[in-house]
């Protein structure tokens, strides 16, 4: 979770290979919101989504979740393993630990837990955003931004 304490809370279910999630990301971060990101990788449509989600969680174990998250959304064309290593390296992470963690059962289970939580909350596509009294699925549109700005 990031954003100012006490700001309006938003939960985003997303997938690092989903273009609409990337489109949501940058404008969302310009708003004064407290954002929680939960993984909703749909592997059959987005073959690298699961690996990317696990990589972000592995970076998180070294305190770099959001930096890695931003680096993934900033360049969705590069999600293969060497690209993930390059990001970890650029962020100064311990590469061996990063690589072991991103393949670990604990990290996979964490991603899985997010996914199941999303299913239970009725998430059926990405991105799906929840805020108090608001639910939006799919490509961000002007109504969504108006609702988030208007509070």
């Amino acid at each position, binding site marked *: 979770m990031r954003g100012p304490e006490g700001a309006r809370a938003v939960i985003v279910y997303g997938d690092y290979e989903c273009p609409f999630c990337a489109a949501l990301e940058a404008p969302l971060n310009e708003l004064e919101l407290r954002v929680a990101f939960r993984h909703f990788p749909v592997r059959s449509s987005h073959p690298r989504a699961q690996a990317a989600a696990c990589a972000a969680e592995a970076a998180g174990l070294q305190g770099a979740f959001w930096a890695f998250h931003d680096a993934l959304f900033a360049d969705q064309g590069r999600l293969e393993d060497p690209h993930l290593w390059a990001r970890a390296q650029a962020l100064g992470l311990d590469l061996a630990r990063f690589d072991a963690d991103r393949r670990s059962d604990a990290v996979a289970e964490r991603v899985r837990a997010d996914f199941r939580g999303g299913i*239970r909350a009725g*998430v059926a*596509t990405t991105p799906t955003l929840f805020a108090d009294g608001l639910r939006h699925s799919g490509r961000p549109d002007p109504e969504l931004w108006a609702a988030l700005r208007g509070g």
Partner: protein
Amino acid sequence: MAVIEAGLPAPEFSLATYEGDAFTRERLEGRITVLVFYPFAFSPVCTDQLSIYQEVLDDFEQRGATLYGVSCDAVWSQQAWREKLGMTIEQLSDFEPKGEACRAFGVLHPGGFPERALVMTGPDGVVLWSHQTASPGDLPGANLIFDALDAAAA
């Protein structure tokens, strides 16, 4: 036309499997079955929908429910789609006579394709729950199926 309601016995129908045999009403018996009617293989919403169900297929199996995808596509198209998505959910084709099984379940869209609908039947072949989306473009979350399984088990 609207989807068959809970409490009614599933109609007689025949759908084609990729293996070449007929999937008929008898195949529903003895277990919980969920027929996932979708408009078209390879279309974006159907791809998202079936991909998400595939992700939680283990959970459905643990709950004793078997899912089948149903569309008016040819078995070859359905199989190509399965392979593309790495999907194990079995597909049933209502290609010829086209849409007849969909019509029997009340889900044949006037455009000649299935409405997006879910039909859950019990071991006795009676409909336990059904759901049709307001528009074929709406995507019913897997939570609806889990909720229906919870209700059926209660």
